[in-house]
């Protein structure tokens, strides 16, 4: 079993030893000479999102694939095989055919700059935590994976509590409210059929799993997810799932749910009773106690649904990490744009004050009291949070039509999501939990 730091070390060490400079062997370490296609990920790329699917499929087929961190926007080297060329043509993914000499030059450039070549060895098994009923919003990760044609499995509370998470390398959470308060839409959308369905499904799941209330069910699920990360899983969460997962973990013995959710009012002293040692990325946050305000705490900086506290959207800037020393954060921020327009979600951002010291900030809005994109370790695994709901629908509201990614093929925001899907592929050994 490999601990995360060992994984990072092995990846970084392998990369540092792989080539010795200009004039190096064009072959990857220990491999026979194989022709490669370069999938550029800078502005020469015509479909960045499908390029991830192309790389994923190449890894899944067992072909030698490398992620060239910081080289032309985080390009890929994939095997030059008919299947890859065919897939690239069908998907509209731009590929280049470098000669051996070109590849040597590329490796020389990588060696001499803040770049690295990371072998991608195992296609990660992907799970998306998603309820079986359709809610009137869309999950950006599901859309991104579908569009990029990266396979995934849907899991929900029964699978999580049934121990199925160990079947997967990567888990994604999106809009779930782990405080069990139905995103606090209860009063705003009372009477809406989708809300009634959501409540009934959740209550039925709680009954089926022998848990007294939906908030209690979600806390149990949150703890399982935490254990999954501790055991070596990779967690990626967006929007409400980030903040409410933190709150559910910190509130393991405290009632933070409004009466409509569990029949009892919130503990009036809940704020003081939260146990932040159990949370993964946040601490010392304060709850939003109004049941009619669809906001949860001051972890979120933008407070999109909190009248009087809502903050306008700006733009966030990705940090530039050392590809050779910090390959994991470097992988997570590979993009052809350094500055990306911000986008709302019920949780859009993370206030700096509530971040734990060990958190790695991947992207921030300079000068603002919040950051956008954070990452951290827990046990043998990692968690990564990206605020906001849909990078290409900045004002996303309930009932808005779904985003058509064929109209956003070069979306820098969606690239951040797909970086997360692919980075577990860089692991050197089987994930065990």
């Amino acid at each position, binding site marked *: 079993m490999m601990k995360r730091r060992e994984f990072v070390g092995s990846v970084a060490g392998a990369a540092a030893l792989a080539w010795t400079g200009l004039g190096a062997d064009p072959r990857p370490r220990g491999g026979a000479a194989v022709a490669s296609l370069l999938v550029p990920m800078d502005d020469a790329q015509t479909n960045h999102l499908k390029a991830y699917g192309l790389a994923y499929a190449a890894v899944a087929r067992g072909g030698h694939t490398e992620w060239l961190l910081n080289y032309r926007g985080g390009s890929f080297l994939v095997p030059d095989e008919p299947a890859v060329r*065919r897939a690239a*043509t*069908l*998907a*509209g993914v731009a590929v280049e055919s470098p000669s051996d000499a070109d590849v040597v030059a590329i490796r020389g450039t990588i060696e001499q700059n803040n770049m690295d070549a990371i072998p991608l060895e195992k296609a990660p098994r992907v799970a998306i935590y998603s309820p079986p009923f359709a809610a009137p919003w869309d999950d950006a990760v599901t859309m991104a994976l*579908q*569009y990029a*044609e990266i396979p995934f499995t849907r899991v929900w509370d029964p699978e999580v509590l049934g121990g199925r998470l160990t079947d997967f390398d990567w888990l994604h959470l999106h809009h779930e409210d782990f405080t069990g308060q139905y995103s606090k839409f209860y009063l*705003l959308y009372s009477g*809406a059929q989708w809300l009634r369905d959501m409540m009934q499904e959740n209550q039925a799941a709680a009954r089926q799993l022998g848990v007294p209330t939906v908030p209690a069910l979600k806390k149990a699920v949150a703890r399982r997810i935490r254990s999954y990360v501790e055991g070596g899983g990779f967690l990626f969460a967006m929007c409400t799932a980030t903040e409410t997962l933190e709150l559910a973990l910190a509130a393991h013995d405290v009632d933070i749910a409004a009466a409509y959710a569990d029949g009892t009012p919130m503990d009036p002293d809940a704020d003081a009773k939260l146990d932040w040692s159990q949370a993964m990325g946040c601490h010392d946050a304060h709850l939003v106690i109004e049941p009619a305000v669809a906001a949860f705490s001051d972890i979120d900086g933008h407070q999109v*649904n909190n*009248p*009087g506290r*809502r*903050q*306008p959207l*700006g733009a966030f800037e990705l940090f530039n990490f050392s590809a050779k020393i910090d390959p994991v954060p470097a992988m997570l921020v590979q993009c052809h744009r350094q500055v990306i327009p911000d986008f709302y979600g019920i949780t859009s951002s993370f206030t700096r004050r509530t971040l734990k010291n060990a958190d790695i900030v991947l992207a921030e809005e300079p000068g603002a009291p919040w950051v956008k994109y954070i990452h951290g370790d827990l046990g043998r695994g990692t968690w990564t949070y990206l605020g906001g709901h849909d990078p290409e629908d900045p*004002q996303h*509201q309930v*009932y808005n*039509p*779904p985003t*058509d*990614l*064929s109209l956003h093929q070069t979306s820098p925001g969606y690239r951040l999501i797909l970086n997360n899907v692919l980075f577990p592929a860089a692991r050197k050994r089987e994930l065990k939990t």
Partner: protein
Amino acid sequence: MRRIAELALLLALPPALLPPRAVGQDVVQRALELEERGLWSDAAALYSSMLQAEPVNVLALLGLERADAQIGRRDSTLAYARRAIAADSTNATAWSVEVRALRAMGQDSLAAAALQRWVAALPGSPAPYRDWARLSLQSGRPHDAGDAVVLARQRLHDPTALAPEMAQVSAAESDWAQAAAEWRDAVAAQPAYAEAAAYSLRPAPASARESVQRILIAPGPASPSGRRIAADLLLGWDEPGQAWAMLQGALPSPEAERLELLRSFGDRAHALDGPGAQRAAAEAYEMAAGLASPDDALQFRIESARAYAAAGDRDAALRLLRVMARDTASGVEVRTAAAAATIELLVGEGNPGEAERLLDSSGDAMAGADRASLGRLIARGWLRRGDLDRAAAAIAPDSSLGADEIRGWVAVYRGNLSEGGRLLRGVGAGFGDRETAPQRAATVALLAAVSRDTLAALGAALLMAGRGDSVHASRALVAVARGLAGEAVPVVLSWAARFAASGRDAAAAEGLWREIAERYPTSSAAPAAELALARSLAGRGDLKGAAARLEALILAHPESALVPEARRELDRVRGLVPG
């Protein structure tokens, strides 16, 4: 968001406070011209200089706001707005500009503070609350807008204040019944809101429409305004008959108002498709004619006749037109206009002979240009009947481009391809409307591909298509294609496939597209055939087959201009993007 912006425009019209005509109008005019030319910095400088001299010049202040917004200098607008407020704290425009500037700069808390100062300066005015509500609605924050309206109603002790804004808040929150009630009251107080009300309520889902209607037509002092909104809504919801019945029960007593209401209803109904809408329009116009001045009445009757004809009620249309044509009390112009409308009607219903007789009998009363225009109309009627000689005769004295186009079609249909191609090319690509110009260009391309001076069978096939017989045209074109060679074959087959598809013979169309793709894979027609075939297969649920075709297109023709479209279609049939 676009809907809200459009609605804001509609809403801005009725209560607009027109600023007093100030000195420096010519300077404002110059600044407006600079804005029109996109010289925003120059315009802003001119507005600023005006405001230096006259801080409360609202025209200049609003102009500066527009110009600064374009060049990202909201802070400059803010400074001038504050200066205007310092000079006149009762100036609502200046307050409004300050609040908008702060909101646009992302300074929400400062904007809220400015709003409080505005309220303090004008304690009895709904304007600050209205502005805040509208800004909140435009930025997708209906809750904030609702809070502002509730506060206004409390403080102003007026439970109906800002009804249009509350109606929009309710609509944004899908509370359609409340939105209907608010709009009913708003229109009762200010009838000019009627259009905005209908626009706002139109997206109500089918399940909410009955309650919306019930609330709008509930008895009470606001009932007539509610019925007017209901009539508009029913039109929008494709219930024109009910809409017309609803409107008739809501017509106001003053004739001028009644006439205007009938005119606007008729115009909206006339713009819709379907015989029901056309009949509603026809009846509204006919009723309007009874209230209008003689000149306007003539136009209303002609429009009414056209709408009756479009509704398929030829007798009603002719009844109106004959009354006008025989009305000896009417002037020559009235009778001529009636005759022209009758000719249009007769041609439209496929009776160019009667139309021609009517034109001949009109003598010298009709002006030359009108006569030529009607002659071309009649010639097109003969083309549709397949009578090429009479079509040519109808335009014999006409030397216009329109007549040349008809001569071109006559030549093509007679099989004189080189002559027809020359005439159609000579008309030019830009002549005609959106339907006929591409059709003409495509035909010229077809003739170039066939590259024959004469080919009677092709002309006859195209004539069949021109007369609306797509199925037989398709078969005839297939026969023509079998006798050709080279690139012309797949091009003619692709026309045959298109006509088969428009004749709802999907099997024949698919067979032809398949033949083009498989037997002529390198032809210019092949990518389009693959795409059309894929769409046809997808349309009948064969998604796998469609995907295979799209993949074949992309892989075999990677340089084709149709490839981006094919990739998008492929994503759709594979369920990778929303359908």
